[in-house]
């Protein structure tokens, strides 16, 4: 079936809007789209989205992670093997993280990581034929926000929820940050790490994030107020 931008689409549909207007222009097609001879076909169920000038993708509900280069993910260290750590990032295979890809790490000065620790890292290699590789430094050798996440709590959620809360237009984090202090790291692999002063505040934060999944922007604000009220009611 022919579809256009903004529609709910199903695998097998095609979109004629996605085509270069002239010789020079380029079209970027993202997840859920595949170019065949005649048209661009849809391979996932979801909503067809467009970003000007020529970027198209499908916004779909998904829980399983497929590693993509450049994304920040949260992983669990599962093994120390030679000079690499094996990190479970929720993909089909574990990812590799070298001892040396930490800030200030040398052969002598190894980072202290235990099996079971969770790390926030960036994917530098993610090809379908190779093991994905992570780093905890940027190209200048600084760690930035990457590295080991201590304490707190990590939970899993659908990948589209992570995209939703990371969207700069989403009011969730803006409304929550005024209510109580917390730390948060959202991995694009559908894992969110949170840390607040007390257990109850952490639970409230997790509750707010998971509850925001199907709510509109105004409802999210209401929910945040509601949760803050519940939280305050108990503390007093």
């Amino acid at each position: 079936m022919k579809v256009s931008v903004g529609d709910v689409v199903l695998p097998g549909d095609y979109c004629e809007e996605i085509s270069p207007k002239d010789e020079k222009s380029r079209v970027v097609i993202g997840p859920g789209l595949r170019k065949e001879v005649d048209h661009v076909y849809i391979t996932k169920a979801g909503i067809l989205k467009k970003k000007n000038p020529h970027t198209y993708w499908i916004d779909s509900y998904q829980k399983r992670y497929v590693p993509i280069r450049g994304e920040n993910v949260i992983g669990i260290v599962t093994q120390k093997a030679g000079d690499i750590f094996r990190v479970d990032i929720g993909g089909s295979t574990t990812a590799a993280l070298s001892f040396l890809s930490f800030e200030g790490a040398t052969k002598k000065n190894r980072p202290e990581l235990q099996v079971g620790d969770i790390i926030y890292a960036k994917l530098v290699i993610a090809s379908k034929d190779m093991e994905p590789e992570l780093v905890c430094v940027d190209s200048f050798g600084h760690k930035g926000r990457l590295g080991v996440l201590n304490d707190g709590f990590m939970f899993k959620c659908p990948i589209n929820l992570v995209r939703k809360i990371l969207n700069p237009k989403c009011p969730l984090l803006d409304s929550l940050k005024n209510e109580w202090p917390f730390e948060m790291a959202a991995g694009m692999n559908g894992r969110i790490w949170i840390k607040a002063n007390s257990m109850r505040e952490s639970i409230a934060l997790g509750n707010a994030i998971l509850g925001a999944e199907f709510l509109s922007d105004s409802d999210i604000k209401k929910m945040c107020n509601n949760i803050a009220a519940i939280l305050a009611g108990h503390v007093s």
Partner: protein
Amino acid sequence: MREVFLSNCEKNFVQKTIAEGYRLDGRNYNECRKLNIAFGSEYGSCIVSIGETKVLSQVSCEVVQPKQIRPNEGLLNINVEISPMAAPQFEANRQTDLTVYLNRLLEKCYKDSKCIDLESLCIVVEEKVWSLRVDLKILNHDGNLIECSSIATLASIAHFKRPDVTRSGESIVIHTLADMDPIPTVLYHYPVCVNFAIFKNNILISDPSYIEETVCTSTSEDGTNTGGLLVVGMNQYKEMCLLDLTGAAIYNSNIVHRAIQSAAERCKMVVDLVKKDIMTDDNLRQKRTKINFADIITTDHAQSLCAKDLCIRLKNFTINDIEMEEETDVSKSIDTDDNTALSKYDVVPSLPQTVELKAKKGASTWIDISSESDED
């Protein structure tokens, strides 16, 4: 089966929250998730769900030769299957420790407790008996598989009806369902396995979720394990059929007593629900109403996805609060009396050790002025 890795922070957090008196999903220690039983179009098929855990069960029967040592008894087989559909760490067509454990536990609970009258399944002594086979398929794994699969087994066996058989001399006729009314299975009692998670050797948690189950059976940071899973099989007459413990040894008999008491209540509730559901299902079938699994998917289900239970939830949080807040604006001005919700400062004991305030959605901000002041 691929191993599931649990990070240290998850482990510590769950241990700490439970020690502080909360659970991740906002339930009380002895609170269970919502139990739902749905029957399929055939006799003996049902889907049981506890929260997000779902188990499909189907009973089938065939005529076989009985065992030599028990020539006048029918056979009962229970077969559990866990596919990657349940959780991604499982592999297809591969037996895991969990499958074997579940299978054994259910056999202990249903076969060894002699709840089914196997003699009534006999057709011709030493020659032909009915063999019942219960196939359980785990559709989704979110903790407490034991309880869910045991309720599924019980409900499907109780719901199952086998074709009627008549003998005339040597020949045996098995009637079709249209020919003659099928015969229900005779159950002497209804056993149910109830699962508890034990934390720190003295905290008992009923209906543990997936993360609670994994945390309580895993070793804590200092290498010791102080938790475990306790399964209590019990029937509606409070007779115990099964007791099973995995994890750390219990050195406190008190906890077993508490578990048994709690299990007795739960079993009564479950058995009543199973019986009631089978009764309503039977009535509907007699009225020739079509029943199938499509009934599970209601519009409510498909549309309001937000109404599902969150796996991390504050105790007083309900998603409906958001919509209710809008209504309260109206009720504030009208000042209606029919609000049965708790007032904002009502103290409700929710746990043995904690007392907390329940926020009221429709709390009026108006201050009552007594009539005397009006007269002045």
